[in-house]
């Protein structure tokens, strides 16, 4: 039934917004689409421990939706959003995702942040055939028809950074420190394989701390004893504040001791304090200080909407991509139907991305560049290195599992 409608739409010339295609043609599965509006869901933690991280994503998604609406909406329809609170609690995420899909019939969900929340929501979006745009850099080992991963998966984020620091600093020995859950563990597994098999270096220590842990003295002593060329960290959340302060108090000068983190964005530095982390290297795909025309428009627009003091981290930018990629995909598919969007996603490119340019891969992850920045006293990163080409996403990396 829906298939017959598609060619008819694609044959239509690009019409003005007033003559939007008929709802019955672009929405054959009963989503919340009217002649003037389409509803999407925003599902992040507005309360609880993760709120501090996820607020940026909520803000970025609302900004993107407002901009899309100002530019005429999607297929002539304004985007309306329903915001739900995951409350930093994974089952709540699952419940709210189900509510958005079953009750509200949203056309897409922009949401989740931690891997745990995504793992909780994934069975729900697969069962009820929803579309989730997930913004966080994450551990990979996952791929779904119903999810577009707008952040980097682990190999994209890590390998280029390790190559760079090995070449630039001649690093041979690495010390890994992470928070104890799936993302740091998987990231470090990939990093270890790369250090040992490709860079022919050595991992001299690998330590994990419970989420929220604030005592890093023993590992700092081990670092002093083993004197690694590089400290490689994926400590998340509030623990970072304690970690970098204790590192500084122990006399480890990040100007002399290279430290590469894959978990500290501008948002975290806000809490850590620029003076405690200046000199550290971060490896991800976006920094607020990026110098390109897209970003120069994006940063002021974000600050205008959410205040001068807000900072924009990697995930916030990735969250901003979600509504835009969805809009572009809907327009490419000529339909809001989830099956058609899932099928049309590969190849969709967004030239207005603040990070420069992104394109959706066959595996529903994004092609994106990897960048290394050095933390400055003012809490911003200075871009040191970026890959020449887009890095291919590889959620199931051969030889790294």
């Amino acid at each position, binding site marked *: 039934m829906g298939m017959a409608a598609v060619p008819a739409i694609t044959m239509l010339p690009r019409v003005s917004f007033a003559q939007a295609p008929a709802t019955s043609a672009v929405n054959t599965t009963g989503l919340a689409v009217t002649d003037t509006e389409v509803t999407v869901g925003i599902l992040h933690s507005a309360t609880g421990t993760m709120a501090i991280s996820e607020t940026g994503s909520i803000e970025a998604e609302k900004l993107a939706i407002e901009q899309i609406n100002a530019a005429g909406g999607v297929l002539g329809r304004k985007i309306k959003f329903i915001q739900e609170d995951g409350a930093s609690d994974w*089952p709540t995420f*699952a419940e*709210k995702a189900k509510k958005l899909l079953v009750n509200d019939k949203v056309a897409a969900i922009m949401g989740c942040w931690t891997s745990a929340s995504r793992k*909780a929501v994934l069975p729900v979006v697969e069962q009820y055939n929803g579309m989730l745009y997930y913004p966080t850099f994450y551990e990979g080992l996952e791929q779904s028809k119903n999810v577009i991963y707008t952040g980097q998966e682990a190999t994209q984020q890590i390998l280029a950074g390790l190559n760079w620091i090995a070449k630039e600093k001649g690093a041979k020995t690495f010390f890994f420190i992470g928070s104890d*859950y*799936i993302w740091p563990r*998987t990231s470090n597994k990939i990093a270890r394989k790369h250090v040992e098999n490709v860079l022919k270096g050595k991992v001299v220590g690998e330590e994990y701390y419970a989420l929220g842990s604030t005592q890093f003295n023993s590992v700092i002593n081990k670092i002093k004893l083993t004197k690694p060329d590089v400290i490689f960290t994926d400590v998340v959340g509030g623990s970072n504040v304690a970690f970098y302060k204790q590192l500084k108090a122990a006399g480890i000068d990040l100007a002399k001791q290279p430290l590469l983190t894959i978990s500290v964005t501008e948002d975290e530095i806000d809490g850590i304090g620029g003076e405690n982390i200046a000199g550290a290297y971060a490896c991800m795909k976006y920094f607020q200080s990026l110098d390109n025309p897209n970003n120069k428009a994006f940063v002021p627009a974000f600050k205008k909407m959410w205040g001068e003091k807000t900072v924009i981290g990697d995930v916030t930018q990735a969250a901003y991509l979600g509504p835009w990629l969805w809009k572009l995909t809907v327009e490419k598919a000529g339909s809001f139907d989830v099956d058609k969007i899932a099928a049309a996603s590969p190849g969709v490119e967004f030239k207005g991305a603040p990070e420069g340019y992104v394109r959706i891969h066959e595996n529903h992850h994004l092609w994106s560049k990897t960048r290394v920045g050095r933390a400055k006293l003012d809490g911003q990163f200075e871009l040191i290195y970026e890959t020449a080409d887009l890095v291919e996403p590889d959620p199931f990396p051969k030889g790294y*599992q």
Partner: protein
Amino acid sequence: MIINSRFFNRSELTGFIVLAAVLFVILPLSLDVFRLNLVAKYLTYAFVALGLVLCWGYGGILSLGQGVFFGLGGYCMAMFLKLEASSVENTKIQSTPGIPDFMDWNQITSLPLFWQPFHSLTFTILAIILVPGLFALIIGTAMFKRRVGGTYFAIITQAVAAILTILIVGQQGYTGGINGMTDLRTLKGWDIRPDHAKVILYFVEVVLLFACIGIAQFIRLTKLGRILVAMREQEDRVRFSGYSVANFKIFAFCMAAIFAAIGGAMFALNVGFMSPSFVGIVPSIEMVIYTAVGGRTSIFGAIWGAILVNFAKTSLSESFPQLWLFGLGALFIAVVLAFPNGLSGLWADYVQPRIDRLFASRKAKAGWTDNSVADGAPAE
């Protein structure tokens, strides 16, 4: 409906009929499956509240660690469901197919020994009852035999909840860590995810809940129940009368643990999910709050407390995603300040007298009097 008049007095009978009507008839007819499934989730906490009525309301033992037992029951069920969902063809993308996905992520290459028996449903059902029961027996024996009670006991149960959470999060290769066990699919080949399955699971759960209510009411009416109340009021007198206070306490605590575990197992089935966020200190305290809001000495009150508090949680968070926690907090403070006996206290103070008056006037007309309205256990 024929109910032994000695089993329920009149106010309890009203409570029973109202609850049965709401859960068996009104809610299934008026709610869509999504909302009904949410009610099923709220009802899993009603099992815990029921246990707390026995152990805290009657026995006077405040346990701030019921999440432990809820979690143990839930994890036992989830382990069975997870094993079934991790068949070789479902997990062929992994390095080691046929084991749960989180084990694969944590470089575990074979199923650990303690997971093996969870291939069997019979074992799982026994484990859901016995593991938390035995665990409660050990804690209870260790504490009550040494006459540790009151606040100290509450603190220790908190510590146990914290320890179990840390254990589950830390041993993520064996337990799924902070992510919990997600993507539970089938029970003996029967898909638990579609709508019709949710409806069946809901009714199974309600039947189980009424079975547990029956057990709790039975315990309350026997001599055992009255010893529990006596213990709560005057522990020393009971001890001097020759009863082993510790054994009665251990029994009440174990029963509460088993009820909580049944709730946990139903949670895993209904929600398709189990995670350490139900085990820790905060959910354990929340469970006590449900009971307090409903009224800790009333079986039906506590169940209503669990349902209504969770309903408020859902609806407040849907309407005010940024502010709902404050609203919920205000609700708790209001309830505790204004009606310390909870909802059941309100009922007993304001609603029940009117019903009684209504009945009394009708009976007066019919020409006979009734003098056994007083609440409490009937005479033996």
